[in-house]
């Protein structure tokens, strides 16, 4: 070997592989957005009737809001009878399957939240509830994670997808009965899995604790629930696939593969198992929850505002870059660990490259919301989803920085990482799911949300609660990391320093749990069609809504664009 090489051979190979694959990726994206195509012919906003462009949908068309009606014209007039029929058929076909999934998801949200708050308190009151094995921190925390990941988040994601896909494809959902069977199998399996963890049966790897014998049924249940989406895709009426369909469709291909490969028993060994573990762990986030969350945000933001998404090219870039870069970041969980340097380095670099898709999504959403930012005040859906999208950007940028060795050496192994994980799964994904459910449920049950104050209370409790949670744990985790790196301090100092912040987390967490209880009670009230049939739930009802731009101005802008 050359005694003083410019670059060592492993680095060279990695550099070449990285460059070639990134180049390939951009050529692939370019081929779709350019090359063979023809931008004039795009159906991008032909299907927007000119009257609808620039109108907000969710809260704005309240029958009682005359000023708004005058400004906007009757909404009904802007939709053709055929389009209304499509919507009716689509919604009717998906109503019950989507409801089954959403109902299950909110039940798991309560179970998962209860386990979470008890686990959180246990970290600063370690002698609380220690008499039964299933209540010990290590098990309760795992019950929390599995209930939230496979119960709440996955079920809510599938429910929202089941409702969105028929609408996006203007095609009734094909094969709804598979959903019922799938949901049943999934839930029996998940209940067995969570019970098994409580009893101490575990496969031992984070995110993959449920015994593999039970995982078989999760795979079967998941496949059955995903099947109707593909059947619908094959029978679709529209030609153009909207960006949300890419995200959701791809997620439904990725997750079963990930979950199946990761749970093959007796195949992985030693540290290689750790590489696989975090390949799965981060891909569950990157290739399952994130695409579904973004798919929903890409639908509801323009939907509620009545404006098309700013740029197709940005959507395209964001989607494929997310898929490519996000799927290779798992190794950043093993920085400094006994795994090959090239693998960890690749994951660090891809984590930083994640800035591209995040930036693309952020710009696309921001330009779409445009001057209508005040709509966030009024629409429950938009309020949650816009907050969720903003926190997505925050979580992703934080993730890119956290992957750098110089930052990771402090934050690795600390509560900082826990705060970051919740910024992604809660701040982003869960918020988007809340917003989506607020939009979907009135369509499913044909009833308005009975109590706007409950939506408001839910929003403020979870937002303030999560802010306390995140800021507290981030500071605590950082101090913990610094104390741990300072060998002149005893280890216990790195524990003591976190205590006030762990308590803050419990306080914030209690707010969040309270918010969830209000949300779930409200969910049951609307499901039972409680109260009298009311006007749409507005967070600030019956006010002059100043945020709507003059419809004509907006329409002109869009035509020019």
């Amino acid at each position, binding site marked *: 070997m050359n005694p003083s090489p410019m670059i060592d051979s492993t680095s060279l190979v990695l550099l070449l592989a990285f460059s070639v694959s990134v180049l390939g990726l951009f050529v692939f994206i370019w081929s779709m957005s350019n090359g063979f195509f023809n931008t004039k012919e795009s159906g991008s906003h032909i299907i927007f009737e000119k009257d609808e462009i620039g109108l907000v949908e969710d809260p704005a068309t309240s029958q009682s809001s005359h000023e708004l009606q005058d400004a906007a014209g009757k909404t009904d007039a802007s939709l053709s009878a055929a389009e209304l029929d499509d919507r009716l058929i689509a919604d009717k076909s998906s109503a019950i399957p989507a409801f089954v999934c959403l109902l299950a998801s909110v039940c798991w949200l309560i179970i998962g939240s209860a386990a979470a708050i008890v686990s959180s308190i246990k970290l600063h009151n*370690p002698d609380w509830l220690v008499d039964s094995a299933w209540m010990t921190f290590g098990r309760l925390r795992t019950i929390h994670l599995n209930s939230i990941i496979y119960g709440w988040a996955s079920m809510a994601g599938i429910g929202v997808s089941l409702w969105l896909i028929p609408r996006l494809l203007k095609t009734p959902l094909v094969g709804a009965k598979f959903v019922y069977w799938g949901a049943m199998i999934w839930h029996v399996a998940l209940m067995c899995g969570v019970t098994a963890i409580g009893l101490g049966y*575990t496969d031992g790897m984070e995110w993959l604790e449920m015994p593999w014998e039970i995982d078989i049924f999760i795979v079967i249940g998941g496949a059955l629930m995903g099947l109707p989406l593909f059947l619908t895709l094959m029978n679709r009426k529209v030609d153009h*696939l909207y960006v949300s369909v890419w995200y959701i469709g*791809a997620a439904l291909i*990725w997750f079963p593969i990930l979950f199946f490969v990761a749970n093959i028993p007796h195949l992985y060994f030693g540290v290689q198992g750790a590489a*696989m573990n975090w390949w799965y762990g981060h891909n569950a986030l990157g290739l399952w929850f994130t695409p579904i969350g973004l798919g929903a945000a890409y639908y509801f933001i323009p939907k509620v505002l009545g404006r098309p998404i700013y740029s197709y090219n940005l959507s395209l870039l964001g989607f494929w870059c997310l898929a490519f870069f996000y799927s290779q970041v*798992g190794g950043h969980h093993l920085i400094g660990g006994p795994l090959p340097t090239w693998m960890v380095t690749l994951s660090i670099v891809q984590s930083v490259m994640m800035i591209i898709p995040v930036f693309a999504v952020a710009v696309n959403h921001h330009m779409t919301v445009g001057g209508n930012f005040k709509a966030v005040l009024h629409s429950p859906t938009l309020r949650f989803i816009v907050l969720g999208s903003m926190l997505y950007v925050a979580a992703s940028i934080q993730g890119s920085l956290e992957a750098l060795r110089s930052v990771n*050496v402090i934050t690795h192994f600390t509560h900082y990482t826990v705060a970051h994980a919740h910024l992604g799964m809660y701040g982003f994904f869960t918020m988007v799911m809340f917003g989506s459910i607020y939009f979907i449920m009135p369509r499913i049950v044909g009833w308005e949300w009975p109590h706007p104050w409950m939506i408001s209370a839910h929003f403020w409790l979870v937002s303030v609660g999560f802010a306390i949670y995140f800021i507290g744990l981030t500071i605590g985790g950082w101090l913990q990391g610094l104390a741990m790196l300072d060998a002149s301090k005893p280890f216990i100092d790195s*524990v003591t320093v976190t205590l006030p912040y762990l308590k803050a987390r419990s306080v914030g967490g209690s707010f969040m749990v309270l918010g969830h209880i209000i949300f779930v009670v409200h969910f049951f009230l609307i499901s039972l069609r409680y109260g009298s049939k009311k006007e749409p739930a507005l967070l600030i009802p019956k006010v002059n809504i100043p945020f709507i731009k003059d419809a004509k101005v907006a329409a002109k802008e869009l035509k020019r664009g």
Partner: protein
Amino acid sequence: MAGHIDEKKLVIGALVIIAVSSLALVIMPYVQLKHIEAPAALKPYTDVQAKGRQVYMSLGCVYCHSQQPRDPKFAPADEKRGWGRASTAADYAYDQVHLLGTMRTGPDLLNIGARQPSQDWHLGHLYQPRAYMPGSIMPAFPFLFIERKGAAKPGDVVVNLPPDYKKPGITIVATTDAVNLVEYLKSLDRTYPIKKTIAESLTTDKPAAAAK
């Protein structure tokens, strides 16, 4: 419509992406690390230690304890705290399910057996961590112990406690699970020099049977 994604492009693209991802993070490490052999100084887990490892997994110890000291040049405190030298792939040759961990709410345990070989300490610490380590936030595990009224029976593994934590007339006796767990913890010792581990693994071309 030309220029738009259709479902074939979507499915094929999605599959290629997950294949690349698996190649980089699952298949390549598998191929590179498959041949690693266990160092001579590292012994396979005995039956009792393996059972203890199951208890460790079942109680979720891994969520607060890592098993992967970092390099002194990268994170010097790890070695200075006595957590041991930077670990290498061969050190985990007998770990069918890895327990590297991602949190250090408690200290790294890869070499806990070398730095804390006392069974008495481990048992008492599991029964009530704060008896031996004031300020600890580790959960107590009283369910791993039996409270026996009166004196201990022959064969009992008795746990000694400081006066503040003693209950009058009660003897605390460890269950088999507790003893197995402590046996596992005591077996955690990768303090042998790496020279042996890596040099041996490189000079042998016999493929390691990793999935025993």
